[in-house]
């Protein structure tokens, strides 16, 4: 019974395409996040939603648009994909605002060719 689940696990696509990654958590948490992990394994925050409200929006290109239909779901849509977008994208959730540990999904490995 997966706590934070992301789909798809792998995404291979060409430059210029638009793609989406979906995330769902069944932990009852009220805060969800998107992190990007580069080839050096550095995890960088992209977005965070608390009870469907955007609270963190880092310096991320406008091509990236998160959407939270409810507090258990956080999706990430990427327009006009570029080579530099290739990375592993992790969804995570926590209870409260930076008050409890992050629980991560298994990641989506995006490869842009």
């Amino acid at each position: 019974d997966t706590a934070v689940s992301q789909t798809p696990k792998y995404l291979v696509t060409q430059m210029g395409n638009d793609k989406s990654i979906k995330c769902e958590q069944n932990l009852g948490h009220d805060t969800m996040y998107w992190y990007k992990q580069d080839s050096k394994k550095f995890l960088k925050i992209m977005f965070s939603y608390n009870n469907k409200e955007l609270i963190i929006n880092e310096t991320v290109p406008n091509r990236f648009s998160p959407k939270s239909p409810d507090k258990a779901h956080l999706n990430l849509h990427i327009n006009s994909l570029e080579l530099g977008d290739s990375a592993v994208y992790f969804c995570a959730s926590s209870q409260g605002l930076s008050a409890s540990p992050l629980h991560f999904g298994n990641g989506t490995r995006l490869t842009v060719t």
Partner: protein
Amino acid sequence: EDKVVQSPLSLVVHEGDTVTLNCSYEVTNFRSLLWYKQEKKAPTFLFMLTSSGIEKKSGRLSSILDKKELFSILNITATQTGDSAIYLCAVASSGTYKYIFGTGTRLKVLA
């Protein structure tokens, strides 16, 4: 700017050795420091530290926080090959609501 620095970047040891991983930070409105282990997939939670000087322990792993000197250490005793992973340190800020990660320490334990 908030930052978290881990050292060493990588480490190779033999089974049975003891290792100490370091994490130093500069964060406004510090709330807590967290340690994670990442093998092939998702980072998995190890410890959350909020108070100085109180050791958290789980089996062969232990960690302690020094809020005055702004660092934490993660100790692993009697290492096993299954301890091979990237160990990530993160600091939670109550001001920005962010969890800021360090670059990680890549540990390899040889049989």
